[in-house]
């Protein structure tokens, strides 16, 4: 029997190249840091009648990042969030002082239409609020239709795109004509997110978007928020400290209507500069 000689490939000494050290996925890159801000809020105060809900807040909110607003109940978190797209004006006898510049433009300037502001700066609320008489598809497309968009192909494309971005498409693609209210709580909240992004806003304001959801639905919303931040600026109000720690790049701590501290989430949750922040996040408040 003829033996086969198997030639070993010529030996070459291995070249050990140290791999590039991977940047932490949680770190804020220089490019992200250098982006122009989404909001520049200067000396903002808000009153409801005589009650001053927000006191002289000055803050710069970075674009295409996630900023969390934390603080105890009644500290003005929601009022501040709503002031970023003039939603607080829907409360009777609300009064404002100071400036909110969005992309360099004062959204409270007399020649600015609040509806136009709200189209560019969308909002998702604590309790999911699909329109009860509308189907899933109608819920997503209502914003575009109200803006006069009628082209069917475009609407169909935007419907799928928005539902995909809201991580809901696979779950509802065969039920688009069923009522929005037929979905589960977590799905309804993602439907509301799809509705908010269908009009292609630049910013998403979220007021406790996952507080009524179970941990799985919450995780889906948090993952979605992370995905959305590649395209949108996200500002989220949350009572859940761990959620703020998990999902945000920056955190602002509000107390009694004042901004106590604003900084990178890593810094706030490992070594806050202000004693009040430390006491609040570690649970030693009051």
């Amino acid at each position: 029997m003829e033996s086969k000689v198997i030639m070993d490939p010529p030996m070459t000494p291995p070249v050990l190249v140290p791999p590039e050290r991977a940047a932490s996925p949680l770190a804020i890159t220089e490019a992200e840091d250098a982006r122009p801000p989404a909001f520049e809020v200067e000396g903002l105060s808000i009153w409801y009648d005589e009650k001053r809900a927000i006191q002289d807040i000055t803050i710069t909110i970075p674009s295409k990042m996630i900023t969390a607003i934390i603080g105890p109940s009644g500290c003005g978190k929601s009022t501040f969030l709503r002031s970023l797209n003039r939603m607080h004006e829907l409360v009777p006898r609300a009064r404002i002082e100071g400036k909110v510049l969005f992309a360099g433009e004062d959204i409270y300037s007399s020649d600015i239409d609040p509806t136009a502001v709200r189209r560019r700066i969308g909002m998702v609320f604590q309790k999911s609020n699909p329109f009860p008489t509308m189907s899933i598809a109608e819920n997503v497309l209502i914003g575009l239709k109200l803006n006069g968009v009628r082209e069917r192909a475009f609407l169909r494309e935007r419907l799928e795109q928005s539902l995909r971005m809201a991580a809901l498409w696979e779950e509802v693609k065969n039920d688009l004509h069923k009522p929005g209210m037929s979905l589960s709580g977590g799905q309804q909240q993602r439907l509301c997110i799809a509705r908010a992004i269908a009009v292609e806003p630049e910013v998403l304001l979220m007021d406790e978007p996952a507080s009524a959801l179970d941990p799985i639905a919450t995780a889906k919303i948090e993952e979605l928020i992370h995905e959305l931040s590649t395209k949108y600026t996200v500002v989220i109000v949350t009572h859940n400290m761990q959620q703020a720690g998990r999902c945000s790049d920056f955190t602002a701590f509000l107390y009694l209507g004042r901004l106590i501290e604003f900084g990178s989430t890593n810094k706030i949750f490992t070594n806050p500069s202000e004693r009040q922040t430390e006491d609040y996040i570690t649970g030693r408040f009051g």
Partner: protein
Amino acid sequence: MIAQRHILGTFDEALASLRNNVLMMAGLAERSLDRAIKGLFERDDDLCANAIADDEEIDQLEIQIDKDGVDILLRFQPVASDLRRVVSAMKLSTNIERVADQATNIARRARKLNQHPALPEMELIRPMHAHAMSMFKDSIDAYVREDVELGRAVVSRDEKLDELNRVASRRLIQRMAEDPDQLRGYLNLMFIARHLERVGDHATNIAEDAVYAAAAEDIRHQPFVPSA
């Protein structure tokens, strides 16, 4: 130094218990190191045996601290200074356990040395022990009192211990050549010097963790700046 009570009393209790276990472990490691060195200088095998026996309890405390630390992270998800305290306690326990291992190693070497007439070169060990022990005690003190300056000072003292070790090694190598009959004895002393030098390294790690716990500042692996 926990300034204000946590809203959850159980969290404060868990943190206090974790800290107490770290302190107990440090106390045991200190005693073990002390017994091992006394066993060497007083030529007392019983003290050496006690030092070796202490190690078991210290190992159990290390396991307990890790378990309690993980439990606290799981149950309370601490942040800021609380998070740093828990992470530091877990890192401290690893270093304290290694200090205790060095004490055990020293005790074993001392027992071997005790079987032969005392070597005058044992005196090389005395200043090293004093220096390593003071570094270890101060590093634990820095952790307990959250004293950043003391922590930094401990780190800068490690260089002197390294130098004492180099001096001792040179002298012992020289003696090996001059007096090869006692080679094993000199070798055991060299190992003891090396174990004490390692105690200094662990004290440095503890001091660095103490600074992190107190001030959230990472001072590890920074270029050494000799003190004036």
